[in-house]
């Protein structure tokens, strides 16, 4: 039972807001515990927004970003600062540490602090980054398998903290100070306020200023909206550009760099909608209840970072390179042009009237666009519901299948009786959201994958057997070290083959990557222990392969049934007089 919990949240404001369901869950799980949030000085101002936090610790590393600030250019000063900060933290006697940062720095910090129970990344004795929790291991492989990931980062982090995040949304504390915002810009109570967040941390992720300007004009002319452009000081230039490109300048207020966090919160709350790139402001606005029209370009992926609450609309280009990998430099940015201002304007107009998100008529399956609505699904899991109905493809099928698989496999308490319920629910959603008429073709493609799964299972069984031999040999005391070494080499060969199957079958790679990740996190020198744990990894892989196969087959069967039902009840088959 934890009484004194430390949460490391050393990333950005948006990430901090995304931890709110976890923090709420921890508070419910440990009602008497004190929760302390450790943040960096850059985003310390956001801590008052985070509910259920009793205390905060600020680590100021920004003071060292200019060598001249080290006074005498000696890093001894940084050492002493870190030493004192860490010792102060240690003296607080935390009994549970949750590290939601994936930086090496935070992992080393976890090691230094030596808190007994840790969730998240830490460094082992040799400085290697490790994580024991299955959900954090999944987080470690997700980056290589983004196409097949359906989990929002909120869900991954929350589940790694042992918090069931179903039905939960992000939330923030509301600002009590009502007075200051009126001085920032005059507006009337009944006015339709729509916010724009045009900047973002990476330039490639931004919708062009011209697009924002055109949208502003459409919203102003069609809905008499007032537009507020938000952002930090460095984004003022973008904001000014939008204003200068728009025709209706008098209805546009540029508040970039002019608001503190409290003022920003108040203004966002007053906005009916926020049209935004993938930013921290997006999460803040969503948590305050403002409807988001989100734009996801470059590496931004709505499955990972959509605002974690229902009722938001998200746009993303559906082109082969989206989302792009981290670290690439695009020299032909086309994704931003797929989203046209009239799409957003039309969607917002309809939403105002009907309080529902309706796909604009101009968008067809050929528009190369994904349009999603954020919802809770049949099982209260956060989900992106596609509004553009395209044919159900392998990627979509596997994404759904992996979601089912990992929710079951990585959660401590598994509800095995729910399988039928879950399959039914998933298939109903698939039928609703995708054109499943060509399920036979999909099934044909899946047969090949089943065969690969069998190959992986076969290899895993071989590996499992080899581990068994090592265990028997070593624990029986008659382990020939040469023989053990030979088994070790043979196991490496098996693992290499498994890895190759994953590389050559990307849909299955999450399985093989998780297998590798589990093995990476095995620590120690005891051969018997390592063999036992490795054997467990093989068993897990076998079970996961079998489960995935079961899920896919069940879905195909169910979808085929639905399709048959559709055909059998189609009017075309009904005898019509005179036909």
């Amino acid at each position, binding site marked *: 039972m934890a009484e004194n919990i430390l949460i490391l949240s050393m990333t950005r404001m948006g990430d901090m807001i995304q931890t709110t369901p976890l923090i709420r869950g921890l508070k419910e799980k440990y009602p008497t515990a004190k929760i302390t949030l450790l943040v960096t000085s850059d985003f310390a101002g956001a801590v008052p927004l985070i509910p259920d936090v009793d205390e905060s610790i600020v680590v100021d*590393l920004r003071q*060292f*970003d*200019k*060598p001249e600030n080290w006074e*005498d250019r*000696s*890093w*001894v*000063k*940084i*050492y*002493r600062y*870190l*030493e004192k900060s*860490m010792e102060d933290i240690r003296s607080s006697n935390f009994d549970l540490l949750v590290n939601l940062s994936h*930086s*090496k*720095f935070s992992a*080393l*910090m976890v*090691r*230094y602090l030596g808190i007994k129970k840790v969730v998240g990344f830490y*460094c082992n*004795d*040799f*400085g290697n980054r490790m994580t024991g929790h299955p959900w954090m291991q999944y987080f470690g492989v997700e980056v290589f398998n983004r196409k097949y990931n359906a989990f929002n980062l909120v869900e991954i982090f929350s589940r790694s903290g042992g918090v069931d995040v179903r039905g939960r949304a992000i939330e923030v504390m509301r600002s009590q100070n009502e007075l200051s915002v009126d001085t920032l810009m005059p507006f009337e109570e009944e006015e339709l306020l729509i916010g724009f967040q045009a900047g973002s941390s990476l330039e490639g992720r931004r919708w062009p200023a011209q697009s924002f300007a055109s949208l502003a004009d459409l919203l102003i002319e069609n809905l008499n909206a007032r537009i507020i452009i938000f952002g930090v000081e460095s984004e003022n230039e973008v904001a000014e550009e939008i204003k200068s490109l728009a025709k209706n300048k008098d209805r546009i207020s540029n508040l970039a760099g002019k608001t503190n966090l409290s003022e920003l919160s108040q203004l966002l709350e007053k906005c009916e909608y926020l049209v935004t790139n993938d930013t921290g402001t997006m999460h803040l606005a969503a948590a305050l209840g403002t409807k988001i029209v989100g734009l996801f370009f470059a590496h931004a992926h709505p499955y990972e970072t959509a605002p974690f609450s229902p009722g938001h609309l998200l746009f993303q280009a559906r082109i082969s390179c989206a989302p792009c990998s981290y670290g690439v430099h695009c020299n032909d940015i086309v994704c931003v042009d797929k989203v046209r201002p009239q799409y957003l304007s039309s969607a917002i107009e309809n939403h105002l009237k009907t309080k529902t998100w309706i796909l604009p008529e101009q968008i067809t399956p050929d528009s190369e666009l994904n349009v999603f609505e954020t919802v809770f699904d049949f099982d209260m899991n956060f989900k992106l519901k596609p509004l553009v109905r395209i044919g159900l493809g392998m990627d979509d099928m596997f994404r759904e299948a992996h979601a089912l698989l990992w929710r079951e496999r990585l959660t401590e308490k598994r509800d095995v009786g729910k399988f039928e319920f879950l399959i039914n629910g998933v298939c109903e959603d698939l039928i609703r959201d995708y054109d499943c008429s060509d399920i036979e073709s999909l099934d044909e493609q899946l047969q090949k994958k089943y065969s690969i799964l069998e190959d992986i299972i076969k290899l895993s069984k071989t590996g499992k057997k080899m581990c068994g031999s090592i265990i028997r040999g070593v624990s029986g005391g008659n382990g020939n070290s040469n023989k053990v070494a030979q088994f070790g080499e043979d196991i490496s060969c098996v693992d290499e083959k498994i890895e190759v199957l994953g590389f050559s079958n990307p849909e299955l790679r999450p399985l093989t990557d998780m297998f590798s990740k589990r093995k990476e996190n095995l620590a120690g020198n005891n051969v018997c222990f390592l063999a036992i744990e490795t054997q467990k990894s093989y068993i897990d892989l076998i079970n996961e392969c079998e489960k995935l196969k079961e899920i896919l087959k069940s879905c195909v069967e169910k979808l085929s049934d639905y399709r048959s039902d559709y055909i059998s009840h189609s009017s075309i088959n009904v005898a019509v007089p005179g036909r």
Partner: protein
Amino acid sequence: MDFFAKNLKCLRQCDPELAERVALQPFPENVTVVQSKDGFPIPRIAGVALHSQYRPAEEGAKAIGDFAFDPERNTVVYGLGFGYHIQALLQQVPGELTVVEPLMTLFRAFMTSVDIQPFLSRVRFRIGETPACLISRLEPDCWNIFKHLPSIRIGENYYNRLDEGLEVKGLLQNRTLRVMIVNPLYGGSLPTAHHCAGALRNMGHEVATVDCEEFAQGFSSLKGVTHNPENSEILSRNFMNFMGEIAAAKATEFQPDLILALAQAPLTPEAIQKLRALKIPVVFWFVEDFRTLPYWNEVATSYDHIFTLQDGEFHDLLRSKGVRDCYYLPQACFPDVHKHLPLTEEEMIKYGVDVSFMGAAYHNRIQSFPRLMNLDFKIWGTEWNLETPLGRLVQNNNKRLSPEEIVKIYNAAKINMNLHSSTYHYGIHPDGDFVNPRTFEIAACQGFQLVDSRKDLSRMFKVGEEIIAFDTLDQMQDQINYYLSRPEERNAITLKSYQRVVKEHTMEHRMQELLLHVFLDRKSSLDSIGEVQRDPLDYCIEQAGENTDLGQYLKQFKGQHPFSLKTVVEHIHQGEGALDQKETLFLMMDQVVEANT
């Protein structure tokens, strides 16, 4: 009485180089010698008497009254005069004295008017030497200075400059300069460029090199492109321009405080101007024979300073062309590379020999060395005709040798032949002036050498005592026979030779002298270069507290150079066992520094 001839004869025994210089100096017109009341000669320069016109010896004794002898330091006298104060010091103070006097004219007058004999055994005269040379070679940290005030008045500029030089030395010691070295494309100066870089780093400066040698192959390939000489010239010129751009790009990024180009560095006058636009000194060390490689004509006037292996005629020529500044800076050894090495039995078999020569097959060597074929003689080097009888003595098939191998060769031979190259002499260049780097390198390796006489040799060594030189090939053969049969004599000379080079003729000495000369007139720029920086490790230990856990931990890095946070982090990564708290903190700090730089 005229003591000059007698004095010159004595001086030639002790300091032949100084003797040569003063021999060339006619009796000065601007120095008047008068008799004091008690009959001693007194010099007057520009109407100023340098000693008492009544009792100069008494005055000299009184003048040194306040001088406090320090046995830990070297006594250095500013000003010669006619030596009355020096005589007084010789009576009061034990050990050697060094006398610093700018005026060769005064020394000439001294040599004429005063018996030098009583001085010679304990006085080292440093006449007309530049402050940079004195400071870089004479360990000024150990100077205990006596100032002869009348001499100071006469030579005010010189002694002020000397004092400024000491100040600049202090500033340089506490600053980390950023020096960019432009290497030659190829040739004998390339090792010198590497040694310059090494020496500057050892002195605590930050060095970046423009590795032009990486482009040598490309330049070489150009020759095969066209036989048309005009077009070939265009290609070469364009290539040089390109190399100049490379140097400029490097300089822009590195932001040096000084740029040093070595001989055959591919920099055109335009490129040099571009570098000078950075408003930092751009200097050239021409480590070649100006007669053999005349391309210096094209570039000399572009540089701020030119350092040369030869003075005299070369400096006259340079000045006539309008160079801003030229300065004599001879070659040197680099003790990091050139050192005594114990050799294994196998290595002794491979490299060991009575007489060895390491070098290229220049004309005079091809002509001279057959005389040695009756001896146990090995040749190492390049461009030898292996088909000739002499060529059959070449051990390495003309393949390039590594610096490590060369050092072994020097260490292994009983006698190293050091015949300076000539493309047209039969044996010895009778007017050879500069001293090649091999002379210093063999000495630093504690190898015994026989070297052909060079005009500048006596400026570097006491010939006959610290080094043995021959004037003719016959003498060369005689010396070989003599020293082969006298190993103790060889060893004694080798040791003196070694002591002399490490005391005055290392690349660090040269770089020190170069920097002093360059920055003597740029003291203000040193002030703006940065705050005082000490040895980084000492500084960190002081910051941490010597007796703290961290301070004690850092002490294990003493001797590691250069030292930085990376040194500690790499040490941790290479370590074994679990990380302790301190190591974890260092790795955390490395992440912070990485993120913020």
